[in-house]
């Protein structure tokens, strides 16, 4: 990762390509951006850090014309940028890679890229010319995709390449990437950083928004921190480190997660020689695993090596095709609904939007969405609204969910606050088995630390916890035992203390024998 750091010699001598002066944006009472000033130079990678809701995405939306700033001036290449028009932003050479990809699944890569680049009234799209221009860009920046493939068939990493190519195709010279690594695997992230390095070397300027401090330090020349809508400070990436940045972001020192020794009890969840999943890469093969009460078992590994199947089998959403899955000593594949009703199993899904919440419902409705709570807040089949809302308010209070109250549409919450809502719902019924799949994906430092604290507290309260995570530091900091999944096989879990990062890295790459020999 480190070699991809952008060269930033003579920073001051370079031409300023983008300048924001006094940018302010209010949403009702909330000041999302408060007098923000920013300068971006040619060939520079600028990291933009901040908690969820610190105003990063708002700032970028203003730059790209999705929002109109209430105050302030924006200049691109010395020219004032007309507000509120993505078309003008594109014309000024600004390209945006959105956090939620703006691609149409049913259309081809080429269609997605060509859209909007030709005059509307033209009688014929020049698709052949477009394809050859696209290939040229692909070659120049090492972004390999097939122009005729349908977006729906591509992996997340490939879709991101399409997003970047889309911007480059429109001759972007300033590229804004909004949390580009949140959904990428390690390898995809590294290849993205290589691309960014290449682009900066060729004179493009890049704004890189992320939660992952190490990545920002590795990929950027300069780092800027936002908190509560204001610029808190700016540092050259070489002179700083992750913990100092974390402090700037949160405003106080972030306590390191502390884990007391585990005192494991009886087995709660067991897999015996389990095969699961059909086709594709996401399958399990001959997996053995035991999770006991009062312990956290971490499953590390690169995404797509069987984590999805593991989470589904553990949550009772899929039955093993071979072998046995036992939960509380019973066959786990039998009637998951009745089990959940007793509130004993809790799932924290990896895809919050698809599996965790219903974004059109109000916060309080989501808070009582699971079976256990639905029963608790119903009488004769009628929801007791007042009690349910009071419960939601209690969750908001206890889990520090930032929102306008229990009636807030859940879709308006930030990722971190959605996750807190899910946690609140899960922990309010004191589950005995918790499956947390990528529990802190996309969360900022503060929220992530909070989620880990909750999981540790649940463990100390007697729950068995299975944490599936791509974040190695996370796994090392909270898991008592760690197993690594690679191509559907699970390495035998080992005590966290007995493993080094390097060893886990080797296990993740599938080199189990090397690790065993080293011991």
């Amino acid at each position, binding site marked *: 990762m480190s070699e991809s750091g952008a060269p930033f010699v003579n920073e001051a001598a370079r031409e300023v390509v983008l300048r924001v002066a006094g940018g302010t944006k209010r949403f009702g009472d909330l000041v999302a951006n408060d007098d923000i000033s920013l300068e971006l130079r040619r060939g520079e990678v600028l990291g933009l850090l901040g908690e969820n809701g610190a105003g990063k995405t708002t700032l970028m939306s203003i730059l790209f014309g999705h929002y109109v700033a209430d105050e302030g001036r924006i200049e691109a290449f010395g020219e004032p940028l007309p507000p509120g028009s993505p078309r003008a932003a594109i014309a000024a050479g600004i390209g945006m890679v959105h956090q939620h990809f*703006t691609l149409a*699944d*049913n*259309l081809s890569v080429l269609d997605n890229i060509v859209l909007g680049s030709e005059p509307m009234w033209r009688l014929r*799209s020049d698709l052949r010319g477009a394809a050859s221009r696209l290939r040229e860009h692909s070659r120049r920046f090492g972004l390999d995709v097939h122009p005729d493939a349908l977006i729906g068939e591509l992996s997340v990493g490939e879709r991101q390449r399409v997003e970047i190519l889309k911007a480059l195709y429109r001759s972007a010279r300033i590229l804004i990437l909004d949390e580009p690594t949140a959904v990428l695997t390690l390898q995809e992230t590294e290849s993205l950083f290589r691309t960014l390095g290449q682009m900066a070397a060729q004179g493009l300027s890049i704004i890189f928004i992320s939660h992952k401090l190490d990545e920002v330090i590795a990929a950027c020349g300069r780092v800027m921190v936002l908190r509560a809508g204001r610029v808190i400070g700016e540092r050259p990436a070489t002179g700083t480190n992750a913990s100092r940045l974390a402090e700037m972001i949160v405003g106080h020192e972030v306590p390191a997660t502390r884990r007391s020794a585990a005192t494991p009890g009886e087995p709660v969840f067991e897999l015996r020689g389990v095969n699961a999943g059909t086709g594709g890469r996401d399958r399990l093969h001959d997996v053995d695993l035991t999770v006991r009460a009062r312990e956290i078992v971490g499953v590390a590994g690169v995404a797509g090596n069987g984590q999805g199947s593991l989470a589904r089998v553990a949550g009772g959403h899929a039955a093993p095709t071979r072998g046995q899955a036992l939960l509380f000593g019973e066959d786990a594949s039998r009637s998951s609904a009745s089990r959940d009703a007793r509130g004993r199993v809790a799932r924290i899904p990896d895809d919050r939007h698809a599996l965790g919440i219903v974004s059109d419902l109000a916060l309080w409705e989501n808070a009582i969405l699971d079976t256990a709570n639905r029963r608790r807040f119903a009488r004769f089949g009628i929801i007791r609204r007042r009690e349910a809302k009071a419960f939601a308010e209690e969750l908001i209070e206890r889990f520090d969910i930032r929102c306008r109250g229990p009636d807030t549409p859940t*879709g308006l919450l930030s990722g971190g606050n959605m996750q807190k809502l899910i946690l609140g719902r899960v922990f309010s019924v004191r589950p005995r088995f918790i499956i947390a799949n990528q529990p802190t994906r996309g969360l900022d430092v503060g929220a992530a630390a909070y989620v880990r604290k909750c999981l540790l507290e649940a463990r100390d309260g007697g729950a068995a916890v299975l944490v599936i995570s791509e974040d190695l530091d996370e796994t090392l900091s909270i898991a008592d035992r760690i197993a690594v999944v690679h191509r559907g096989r699970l390495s035998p879990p080992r005590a966290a203390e007995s493993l080094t990062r390097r060893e886990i890295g080797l296990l993740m790459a599938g080199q189990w024998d090397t690790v065993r020999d080293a011991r």
Partner: protein
Amino acid sequence: MSEPLEILLTASFWAAAVRIATPLVFGTLGELVCERAGVLNLGIEGIMTAGAMVGWTSVYMGADLWTGVLLAATCGAVFGALHALLTVPLGLSQHVVGLGVTLLASSLTYFSYRLLLPGASTPPTIEAFQPMSVPGLSELPLVGEALFSQTPMTWLALALILVAAYVLNRTPMGLALRMVGENPQAAEAQGISVNAVRMTAVIVGSALMAIGGAFLTLAAFNSFFFTMVQGRGWVCIALVVFASWRPGKALFGALLYGLFDAYQVRLQHAVAKEIPYQLFLMTPYLLSILALILMSRRATYPQALMKPYRRGERG
């Protein structure tokens, strides 16, 4: 040979099938254009009724036939503009608005027709489009009459299928239209005005529906009566799904329906009279439902169909 099979060998049967399919082609194309842009237009039934009346009345009052078609299209565009205004920038429920437009358009049609012709007890007639024969080709067995001895409006319908397929798949405008129906956020991010594209699509689509209605009064029959459209609009909506939102398949679907319908009419006369004719009337619909089930199981909907788009909101 038995009589039911002989029907299939008569040239007039095939010609009738194409004639029955023609208004469905216009309507289905219109609906398809709307839905590809992400707007379900349930106003179709009413818009077709209005188009039928406006086309006929124009000609009855002295306009020539093509002006009648043009005025019908304009009338459709006006109702389309109303639908578009309510569903696109205002983002109201497309179901409710669509049914509202159907009720409004049909009632206004009946009302104006009564105002125009208060005394008429039997519907007056006009000089409608006549079938034109292509010399030589129309003499071919079976397909000759079906394809080459039709009114100009049928040829217009066939030409529009080609135009629609070309515009949708080969032009920047068609791409923008498909994109706003698949992922409006993506279109917006590329500098496309989602509202403008959607409104244009609904207006153009509604104009096509109205032409489909006008075909009924200006080519298929030569007068206007109230129950004229008779659910053809709803058939078109099913045909769009049947066609998986593709113009070529829409033509196929409309022709298939035309064949069923033409066949059942002839069968009524051919086979025993003791079978109630209502059973025959049902068959095209039953077969349509069956075909729909078979064809649409793997259909890929436009992803943003029926989802209003508001700027600055995440999808």
